[in-house]
């Protein structure tokens, strides 16, 4: 298969194009369409005709203090998760470079195991560990009877801990691979010049690893902004009176619990636009790091 200009790539790409066109592009178009329609249970069952309402779903949404509170919670929650994940992941990546073989193997296998646990099982396990009365952690701390899910912040913190536990391994493994690729002579020269670990990290590793770091940061932002399963399972669909809703869960609840499909779609579009902005940032970073597409 030489690099020629025949029609061959077309039939090779056709299956992918069909699947992605039908199940990615078309639904994205539909999402946009739904967001400008009055589409509730009545329209789903065919009782009433669908009605074009223009920006009404959006103006309702932006006029609703609930939306802003959920958006704020989503941003703060995602930011907290990203910072914690990066701090833990980067710290452990550096630690991995400075320890003996056996502890290194243990730590990387442990991290891999945490990474592998499905979100649902991870959530249920942490719920049991932090259960009000039967939870090992509560008993250990001597706070039996304390329900982590009653308070908005402790609930978010616990869910965040599960998210970080499941996602720091990706950061750790990727950064560790990046550090290992730095020529040993560079780090040795630094330590000969009297740089301690802290300075070596910030002034040598961080600048060299900039492209990898950017990718890890943006991937984490995208993942943590979209957390669904952990929140849905651990807070039973958004917490007491919806105190732990994030955009994703909010859109889902509006659509499938309240049958406000148009409104849910509008929230989906808002989320899509936010993530698109982050993605464009990601692409620019890739380009900057000299990526040949």
């Amino acid at each position, binding site marked *: 298969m030489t690099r020629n200009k025949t029609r061959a*790539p077309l039939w090779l790409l056709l299956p992918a194009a069909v699947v992605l066109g039908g199940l990615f592009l078309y639904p994205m178009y539909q999402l946009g369409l739904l967001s400008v329609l009055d589409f509730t249970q009545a329209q789903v069952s065919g009782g009433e005709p669908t009605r074009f309402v223009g920006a009404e779903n959006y103006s309702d949404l932006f006029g609703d203090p609930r939306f802003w509170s959920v958006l704020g919670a989503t941003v703060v929650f995602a930011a907290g998760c990203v910072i914690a994940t990066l701090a833990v992941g980067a710290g452990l990546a550096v630690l991995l470079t400075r320890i003996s073989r056996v502890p290194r193997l243990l730590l990387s296998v442990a991290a891999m195991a945490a990474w592998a646990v499905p979100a649902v099982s991870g959530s249920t396990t942490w719920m049991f560990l932090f259960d009000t009365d039967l939870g090992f952690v509560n008993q250990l701390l001597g706070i039996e009877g304390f329900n982590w899910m009653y308070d908005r912040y402790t609930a978010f913190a616990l869910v965040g801990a599960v998210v970080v536990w499941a996602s720091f391994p990706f950061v750790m493994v990727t950064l560790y691979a990046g550090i290992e690729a730095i020529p040993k002579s560079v780090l040795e020269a630094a330590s000969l010049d009297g740089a301690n670990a802290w300075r070596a990290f910030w002034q040598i590793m961080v600048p060299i690893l900039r492209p990898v770091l950017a990718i890890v940061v943006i991937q984490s932002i995208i993942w943590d902004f979209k957390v669904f399963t952990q929140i849905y399972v651990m807070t039973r669909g958004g917490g007491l009176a919806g105190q732990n809703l994030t955009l994703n869960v909010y859109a889902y609840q509006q659509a499938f619990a309240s049958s406000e499909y148009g409104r849910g779609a509008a929230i989906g579009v808002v989320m899509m636009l936010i993530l698109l902005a982050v993605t464009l940032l990601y692409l620019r970073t890739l380009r900057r790091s000299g990526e040949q*597409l």
Partner: protein
Amino acid sequence: MRAGRRLLDAVAVLIALVTVFPIYWMVLSAVKPAGEIQSLNQRPWTFHPSLAAFQRVLQVNDFGRYLLNSLLVALVVVAVSGLIAFLAAVALTRFHFRFRTTILVTFLIAQMVPIEALTIPLFFLVRDVGTVVPGVGLNTLGSLMLVHTAFTLPFAIWMLRGFVQAIPDELDEAAQIDGAGRFTVLWRILFPLVAPGLAAVSVFSFIHAWNDFLFARTFIISEADNQTLPMALLVFFKPDENDWGAIMAASTLMTVPVLIFFLIVRRRLVAGLGGAVKD
């Protein structure tokens, strides 16, 4: 220096233990007898391991069936998405054509799309398609296979591209000079060489499909027989009292296949991921 290293080693081991502790707790709680699970004095060990919780989960709640459903969905997704991605990856690396870069960027962007937001249109799409093709409508495993094939595709193509690129062009040219057709080159030359890459991609696709909670929850509404693991697990949460033994046993059943998979391909996974990130 030596003392410092000892200290760091100890810290690393401690962190490793804390990290695996929840998994240990999950498996431990699954084999604890009912009395110890309900205890207000939980101990991090048990002297009377019992398989009662597993029996309850597998026999009374027919968890085996859901396990099989999940497995079926995941395997079909792995096979179909791997095949389609392989073809697309060949097209994107072995040929130069207009819009090639545009297509690549589109795949990258597709990875970032919040698929959770697409549940709403996809729900209606699946419902409508189901009236024409019953096999992929609501309440069917087919609907899950369909959407997860689509969702795993962009990443699979992106990752496989690196593996196809690594195979020298001269190899397929030589085969063509020897009279091999396009099809032969594809299946007899490229496919076997990309197989390790396909293995790594498979893990990601498998885990994606296996872990899915959202679409299973949205599409499988009334057909209990077609549920997959994540939804079936939540049955043990009850308003009055959660059956923690069963929840932990079910969680263990759900985790073990993925865990084994992950640890086996650990090294290759990191290599493949590095490729996907850097490539």
